[in-house]
């Protein structure tokens, strides 16, 4: 309907302009997004299904998948708790250093992931600040799973908080105050009023946080030590296989990561489509 109206009012040169712009955008997307993604799957299946399945059934691949899931399973919930707490503090209280907290939350976005990894090596590595103490107590952080988890938490820290802060700011605290006056305890207020109001933003944050947690390369690479079958996550496994000229293997694991990204996108789109009205109704102003 709107297209019909537009085509009637727009003059010919303008219509050509519209079409040209559309084609350009489409070509750009194809060249820079769709083609690389397709390449991943094309390379992975180049030698057929059997080598593909064999590649992802190798114990190293399985351990990489397991480790990636484990790291995400620890980092994402922790960042959900932190993100909600930070967003709550930022939007419900006035305190000194609030701007500083906001800047700190954004820090992982602005620091290169490699540096994020190095920081943990400097702190917990054998020559780092806490290295000797950790060695003495036989606790391994760097080149072990705890280091991977720490680096991932650092990298994914802003995602949940950044999704929640603008929404909670816009929603204000009146509903929470109403709940208090009606006799709700702190937890009741949180679970019955706050959480339902932020659930979609929270879910977005979790999805983004999870995608990044599973896909992170730089920071994780620094603290991992690349011990095959022990401290290699999926992105690291992809790189190692590629460096070893195992293209099918590399792209097979990469395809799993890509699949994960597509799945995240699909869930997000599905949510928007299925609950679009509700999301709009909960958006600020749609009171």
């Amino acid at each position, binding site marked *: 309907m709107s297209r019909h109206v537009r085509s009637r009012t727009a003059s010919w040169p303008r219509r050509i302009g519209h079409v040209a712009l559309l084609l350009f955008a489409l070509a750009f997307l194809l060249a820079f997004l769709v083609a690389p993604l397709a390449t991943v799957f094309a390379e992975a299946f180049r030698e057929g299904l059997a080598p593909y399945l064999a590649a992802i059934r190798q114990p190293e691949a399985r351990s990489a998948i397991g480790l990636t899931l484990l790291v995400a399973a620890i980092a994402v919930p922790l960042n959900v708790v932190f993100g909600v707490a930070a967003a709550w503090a930022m939007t419900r209280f006035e305190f000194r250093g609030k701007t500083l907290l906001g800047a700190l939350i954004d820090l992982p976005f602005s620091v290169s992931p490699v540096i994020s990894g190095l920081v943990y090596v400097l702190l917990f590595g054998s020559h780092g600040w806490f290295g000797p103490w950790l060695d003495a107590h036989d606790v391994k952080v760097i080149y072990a799973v705890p280091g991977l988890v720490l680096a991932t938490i650092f990298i994914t820290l802003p995602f949940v908080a950044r999704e929640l802060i603008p929404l909670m700011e816009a929603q204000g605290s009146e509903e929470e105050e*109403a*709940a208090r*006056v*009606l*006799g709700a*305890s702190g937890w009741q207020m949180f679970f019955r009023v706050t959480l339902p109001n932020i659930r979609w933003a929270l879910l977005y944050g979790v999805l983004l946080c999870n995608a990044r947690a599973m896909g992170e390369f730089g920071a994780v690479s620094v603290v991992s030590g690349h011990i095959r079958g022990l401290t290699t996550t999926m992105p690291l496994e992809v790189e190692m296989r590629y460096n070893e000229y195992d293209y099918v293997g590399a792209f097979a694991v990469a395809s799993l990561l890509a699949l994960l990204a597509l799945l995240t996108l699909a869930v997000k789109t599905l949510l928007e489509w299925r609950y679009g009205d509700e999301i709009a109704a909960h958006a600020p102003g749609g009171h």
Partner: protein
Amino acid sequence: MTLELSHLNRRFAEYQALDDVSLDIAPGEFLALLGPSGSGKTTLLRILAGLDYPDTGSVLKDGKDFLATTARERNIGMVFQHYALFRHLTVLENIAFGLRVRPWRKRPSRAVIRERVERLLKRVQLDDHARRYPSQLSGGQRQRVALARALAVEPDILLLDEPFGALDAQVRVTLRRWLRELHEELGLTTVFVTHDQEEALELADRVAVMNNGRVEQVGSPEVIYQQPATPFVCEFIGKVNRFTVRRNGSALAAGGWMPQDDPWQGKYTEAVAYVRPEQLRLAVPTSQPAWETRLRHIYLAGSVAHLELHVGSLDQTLEADVASEDLSRLGLHPGMEMRVAPRGAVLFPRNDQGVTINHERWIWHARSPVPA
């Protein structure tokens, strides 16, 4: 259930929201906190609700410390300015909220909750909207849901923050009357905050006028209107003409008019006088002191006509109200000359620094009862 608020102070970073506020709230009364924005009225309400605390001062409920109890223990119903309905819950769930969050020992059974919510829905005339979400309701409907939600917990005190602020004029008047009836039916102690003086005077048993964190005057709407305690109350409530009265030799006078008396016995040389538009008497006989005025404009506002009168001797324009039907009876037309004098006035003396002495207020009435 009596509430005694004494010497409350609350300071925010930039300003004093409450400045030594003391106030008693009697059981079952309908009290309005009236004042301009920033006068501290909402802060006072939030302190009663347990959403804010004073820096100093105390609130006693039947002699017991009210501030020591948390918001959830106070048994208060509150209607927020923008209603603060839970947007993810239906009307029914909103109203039931206060009952459902009770600790299980005090929580009524499902059937009782259901029955009470349905009764409230009927009372606020929303029985066929139970399954709707707040976003699907009009402003007036939301307001009624907010009220039903507050009443569901069977509160001791009902607090309303600008309850009609966001509604259009017609709905506002209807809801106002309805709220007043509801109050009389339930006999609930009700405190409501408003900046609309008409609303306060029409609804409340008592009005507390607030300004800059202080209570300027507490009294019945009649007292507030007829006997304002301070110049602020004079100017904030209703329309008013203000002019200066000076001592000229032995008598106080303003232009050609004089009150023919001096309760201060020459102590002050100057006073500020307030006269309401309906207290100006038109066509005063020459035997009595009055102002020579020229009628500049007539603004017809339905049943009342506002006259703009220029007083040459004061070099000031005063406003007088007459019933519209009197316009032709008195033969009023713009440009005509007329003798005008107050029938009553409120005067506050000024000291040498020009500061009004509020406790020396003088309510002046014309000596002989004057026919309108």
